[in-house]
């Protein structure tokens, strides 16, 4: 949907970003918001894969980890420029996704789910076991990113980098969804048969989106490494992959802004409710089940659908503009 006029989601987004920065002074809060931004980046990518292409990745934490550790290892052990290390992280994740995607996406059904599951666990074990990753205690002393010599070593400075980058990514993703490729993606999700019969190379498209979502994840990973200046394997485990899927499900599949909502909600909630922490696993699992049973298109999208349906009934059965 293209929005004309001043009051559209993009201006509101920009306004919100500026306002939040002005209101929040506390480093802890700013870091939290930064993490939300990073999670949103992850969720948008996964959403493109799940919500639009209709595939599921149960190991997306692995790409997050590949990006983070490539950045971490090459800056700490080899002194590489952080930006170059970031690019390297993208390459590593992209190649990995390509190699896994080619065979997995040729098969029908949920083979990608299984393959990503296996891949995710293997990556986690390697991160945990290998000596050159720092093992279970993690990798510390990761340098900060700097822009033209200006080091981004405080949450406040990182804030604009992360949220500006996120804004650009959101814009590009929204554009993509609205374009010929985006339509082909949505078509692929709705009816792969029909899409193929209209000339859409569905295997290639699925692979493309899978690799693309892995790149988003790797970018998020690098940013994460340079935000906390410390990474440990426990942040990249199976449970985190599940949390990402839950964020997509809550935010609503096939919704760019829903990604932001899902990431924000499920990142803030555990922080707000300390007692939540013990029950965190139950709540995530419960949310997944309940939302998928009652609103299979995701929470936000499902509620919107319900609202649209009520309007439909009230207007006497005529359907409003899509």
């Amino acid at each position: 949907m293209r929005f004309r006029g001043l009051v559209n989601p993009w201006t509101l987004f920009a306004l919100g970003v500026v306002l939040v920065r002005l209101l929040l002074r506390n480093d802890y809060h700013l870091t939290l918001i930064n993490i939300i931004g990073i999670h949103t980046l992850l969720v948008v990518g996964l959403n493109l894969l799940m919500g639009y292409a209709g595939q599921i990745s149960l190991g997306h934490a692995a790409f997050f980890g590949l990006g983070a550790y490539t950045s971490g290892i090459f800056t700490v052990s080899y002194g590489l420029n952080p930006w170059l290390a970031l690019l390297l992280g993208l390459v590593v994740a992209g190649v990995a996704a390509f190699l896994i995607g080619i065979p997995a996406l040729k098969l029908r059904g949920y083979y990608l789910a299984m393959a990503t599951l296996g891949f995710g666990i293997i990556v986690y074990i390697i991160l945990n076991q290998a000596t050159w990753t720092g093992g279970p205690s993690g990798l510390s002393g990761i340098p900060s990113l700097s822009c033209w010599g200006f080091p981004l070593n405080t949450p406040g400075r990182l804030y604009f980098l992360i949220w500006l980058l996120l804004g650009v990514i959101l814009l590009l993703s929204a554009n993509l969804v609205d374009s010929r490729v985006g339509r082909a993606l949505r078509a692929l999700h709705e009816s792969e048969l029909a899409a193929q019969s209209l000339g859409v190379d569905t295997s290639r498209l699925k692979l493309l989106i899978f690799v693309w979502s892995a790149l988003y994840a790797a970018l998020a990973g690098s940013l994460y490494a340079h935000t906390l200046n410390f990474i440990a394997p426990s942040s990249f485990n199976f449970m985190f992959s599940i949390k990402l899927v839950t964020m997509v499900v809550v935010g609503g599949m096939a919704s760019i802004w829903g990604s932001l909502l899902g990431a924000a909600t499920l990142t803030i909630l555990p922080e707000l409710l300390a007692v939540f922490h013990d029950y965190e696993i139950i709540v995530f699992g419960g949310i997944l089940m309940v939302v998928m049973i009652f609103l299979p298109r995701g929470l936000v999208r499902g509620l919107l659908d319900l609202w649209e349906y009520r309007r439909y009934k009230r207007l006497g059965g005529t359907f409003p503009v899509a």
Partner: protein
Amino acid sequence: MDYTTSLLQYLISGLTNGAIYALIALGFGIIYNATTIINFAQGEMVMLGALGAVTLYQIYPSLPVAFFGGVMVVTLVGLALERLALRPVRDQSPLVLIIITVGAAVFLQGVAMVIWGKEAYTLPPFSGGAPLRLFSATLLPQNLWVMGLVGLLVVLLEAFFRLTLVGKAMRACAYNPRAAQLVGIPVTRMVLISFGLAAALGAAAGILVAPLTLGVYDMGAMLGLKGFSAAILGGLGSSLGGVLGGLVIGVAESLASGLVSSGYRDVVAFLILLLVLFLRPQGILGGAR
């Protein structure tokens, strides 16, 4: 002489673990055959069986009671899962159903953590007594219990599917649900039974392995996923395939851990999973799809 002993030791522990994976794989296969979905919560049935048996044993110290009681309770959990979480949405895409089972797995793990905490619990071995010696390798009685009982369960399962009416009806549902319905087989009930059966097998696996490797709230995830790899390796839906896959993974894991590196033990199962998916997705015994 020492080398042979080590090898034999690896083989023993490999076959024991493999038998457990095989049992879990069978559970995946039964549900897959009835519904074509993968029940990612299968691993949690194993965990609930183990911890449930531990609690039952603490209340009333009798192993048979703990065993059968544990199996029964977990079977009820499996039935509840099908009835409450999956039946209402049966016509949704497999993707939605998979996510629901993943959610259920996570949920059950969370519940287990609240009930039992993060500690490890033990169950006494099924028969006491000193370890046996096999060419100077150690063979615990529990190893024999595991392999023996799993073998028995596999045989009983095959008999059930081939000889009993209910078993044959379930196989009919797997081949052609519509035709089965037309002949009067209650497909929904068959699906329900398959979930109960799979849960029972999972619980049995958990109770069998608890004396050897302890019961913890998060044991289900890894065991479930390795059992899943075994099922895929052998050919999803094939009983013999599940057994074969389980044993292969168990032994491969044990050998890799002993001969190469113990830290990467868990990688073996998933490496095999990826290899199978990429080279021969239907598994060793699976027919061409």
